């Protein structure tokens, strides 16, 4: 199933994660990164579905099957970005450096008191940006997310920096979206993910690295209702040949604030197409930053027979499935290993 990430249990126990956190800080980044090789090898061998998912990705990207080594390095990059979250959140001296590109355009909105929506993806490390905000207050992002997913990992990490918890808006009912709206009205930055779908959720098709993929409609609808400008955002992990690495926080304009309800479908169509195109472009820049370890191009089995208000079935909503914005109620106790 395409949505398997959502139902999957998070790998690793809370105890193991806690030990990992303490070890990572005691041993330092250089040593812990060496330990990542056997750990990655373990997950590489025990998670064949993840390998299959990455093969789909590389086939779309390069038009040919990736080598086993390439897929392994991809797993390793994922492990490294998770490890870096420890140092970034703890504001440890081993935390890798980051640079920021394209923020001027975002800042010009914020300076006028206009909040901005950052439409991200499971590409790179959104976490690097949250951590960057500790020393760069203008970068403070409220992230809307399913807290049921990767809850273990997030709880282990928020111990390092309790303030990080405050910057997550959990999905779950109407109140959380009103909170997002209030935050935007005060000129805040709101981040949401636009790539993963959950079972039964309404989607839109878009060209992504060539073939057509199905993206969740909820984030676009939410952006439309919030009437704030939308930027693509990613924090790419970039390593150079000498082993040094850094994070590149990239902001790229996608669309201005949504128009009235009547012209909104067209606006969402544009936003969806631009988002998929921009996401694809950054996949080509940093291929191993793609952290959706499943067949992303699989057609989701959303149920079109749900009762609805009979609007444009593609964009207006109408008979649509459950929205990913409706909360994580169903996900209590389940988590994905692929959360970045």
């Amino acid at each position, binding site marked *: 199933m395409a949505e398997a990430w959502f139902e999957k249990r998070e790998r690793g126990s809370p105890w193991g994660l806690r030990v990992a956190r303490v070890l990572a800080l005691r041993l330092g980044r250089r040593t812990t990164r060496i330990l990542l090789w056997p750990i990655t090898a373990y997950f590489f061998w025990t998670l064949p579905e993840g390998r299959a998912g990455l093969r789909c990705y590389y086939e779309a990207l390069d038009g040919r099957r990736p080598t086993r080594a390439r897929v392994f390095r991809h797993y390793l990059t994922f492990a490294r970005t998770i490890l870096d979250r420890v140092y970034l959140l703890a504001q440890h001296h081993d935390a890798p450096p980051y640079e920021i590109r394209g923020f001027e355009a975002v800042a010009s909105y914020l300076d006028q008191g206009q909040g901005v929506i950052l439409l991200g993806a499971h590409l790179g490390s959104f976490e690097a940006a949250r951590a960057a905000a500790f020393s760069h207050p203008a970068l403070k992002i409220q992230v809307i997310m399913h807290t049921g997913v990767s809850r273990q990992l997030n709880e282990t990490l928020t111990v390092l920096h309790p303030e990080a918890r405050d910057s997550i808006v959990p999905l779950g*009912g*109407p*109140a*959380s*979206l*009103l*909170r997002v*709206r*209030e935050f935007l009205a005060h000129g805040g930055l709101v981040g949401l993910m636009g790539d993963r779908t959950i079972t039964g959720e309404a989607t839109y098709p878009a060209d992504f690295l060539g073939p057509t993929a199905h993206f969740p409609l*909820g984030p676009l*609808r*939410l952006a439309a*209702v*919030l009437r704030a400008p939308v930027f693509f955002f990613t924090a790419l992990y970039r390593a150079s040949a000498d082993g040094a690495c850094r994070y590149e926080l990239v902001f790229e304009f996608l669309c201005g604030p949504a128009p009235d*309800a*009547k012209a*909104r479908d067209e606006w969402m169509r544009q936003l969806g197409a631009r988002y998929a195109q921009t996401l694809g472009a950054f996949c080509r820049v940093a291929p191993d930053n793609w952290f959706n370890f499943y067949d992303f191009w699989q057609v989701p089995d959303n149920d079109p027979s*749900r*009762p*609805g*208000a*009979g*609007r444009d079935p593609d964009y*207006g*909503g*109408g*008979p*649509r499935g*459950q*929205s990913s*914005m*409706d*909360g994580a109620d169903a996900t209590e106790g389940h988590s994905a290993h692929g959360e970045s």
Partner: protein
Amino acid sequence: MNSRQTDFEREIAQLLVSSLNLALDADSIDPETPLFREGLGLDSIDMLEIALAISQHYGIQLRSDDPDNAVIFASLRSLAAAIGARRT
């Protein structure tokens, strides 16, 4: 149980239809039908849209920390009652 719309409920129903761009006749919305999920099939993003439209039209701020939110947004009737009570 009365499932006919009052004048004020009709006014709110029209606001729902126009702000959400629903392909529905405002008169046909049963005031007792749940707005969300199995009822009219609206979701929390629609709810946000409704909250914004209400604050624009009636100057009522529906707040995220209101403990009555679940009750307020249960049906057209409860929504109209909540707006009426706050409008005064």
